[in-house]
């Protein structure tokens, strides 16, 4: 199964077998247990819930504890559902990075780093004003729009809270999958801070491209 939960460790660069030197994000992924199997008949949709990470017994909420008990599995810190690529997956089964191969394409979901209350330059890539020569518009957002309208258009890009959003990076290449150490190396950056939970899914774009090729 090409779905897994993991923890972002950080970035480095590695040499691939074909001699390329690529920037990678190291993800400590799995081992995950299949916590629940949702079916169309009883829940209205098909999905598999994966659990990841150790948790103290006392930290599990009563509601979740009951849930785990009913399925007969150990309690885990994180539980996330996956809807695709779940054929033949049973409750209690362990999911590791062994299901991934170099060259696979994955989508990675994470919670982006928080930037607090950020201005237009950082938040929306505004270019900013001049630095000197009497320019008084340095990092200001400048005009907010038409004065004739007498109001600010909805959805216009303004300073505000930036980051801590659920972010998906699509179509990332798996560079290495190390089943012994439960490591997944993915080319390029991945949203989130070090140590944060990341969800690795089979790539949507790669799947549709493959379907089109057929």
């Amino acid at each position, binding site marked *: 199964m090409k779905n897994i939960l993991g923890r972002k*460790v*950080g*970035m*480095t*660069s*590695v*040499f691939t*077998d074909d*001699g390329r*030197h690529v920037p990678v994000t*190291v993800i*400590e992924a799995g081992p995950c247990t299949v916590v629940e199997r949702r079916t169309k008949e009883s829940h209205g949709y098909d999905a598999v819930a994966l659990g990841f990470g150790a948790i103290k017994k006392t930290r599990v909420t009563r509601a979740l504890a009951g849930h785990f008990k009913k399925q007969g599995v150990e309690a885990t810190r994180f539980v996330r559902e996956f809807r695709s690529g779940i054929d033949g997956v049973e409750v209690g089964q362990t999911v590791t990075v062994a299901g991934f191969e170099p060259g696979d394409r994955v989508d990675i979901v994470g919670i982006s780093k928080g930037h607090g209350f950020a201005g237009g330059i950082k938040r929306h890539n505004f270019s900013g004003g001049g630095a000197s020569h009497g320019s008084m518009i340095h990092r200001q957002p400048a005009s907010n729009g038409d004065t004739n309208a007498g109001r600010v258009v909805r959805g216009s890009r303004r300073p505000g809270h930036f980051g801590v959003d659920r972010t998906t990076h699509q179509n990332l290449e798996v560079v290495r999958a190390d089943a012994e*150490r439960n*490591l997944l*190396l993915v080319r390029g950056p991945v949203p989130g801070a070090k140590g944060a939970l990341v969800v690795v899914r089979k790539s949507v774009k790669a799947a549709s491209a493959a379907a089109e090729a057929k």
Partner: protein
Amino acid sequence: MNVIDVLNREQLKSNVPEFRSGDTVKVYSKVVEGDKERVQMFEGIVTVRKGGGGKEAITVRRVAHGVGVEKTFLIHSPRVEKIEVSKRGIVRRSRLYYLTEKIGKAARVREKKVAR
């Protein structure tokens, strides 16, 4: 030790000889031609040695048919098969950018006599 340090350490080569800028080295690297792979040798003066860990790279300069050629190699790349030191040079800086502007006799590096 954290996971990233372990990963970085694993890809370092143990057979890299000791050399620094000013030395003349032979770099044997694998090149792909069509569907064949062969080893190519490039000999010249090391003008820059920079970076650390897996990113450590050298720039090698030679004058071929009157044209200066500089190539950079990642020391720990699997494409670089072997590095041999053929001469030791005496230089007073770590990055020999000044060689680019010199031609002929001025572009020489004094050789260090090494007892073998």
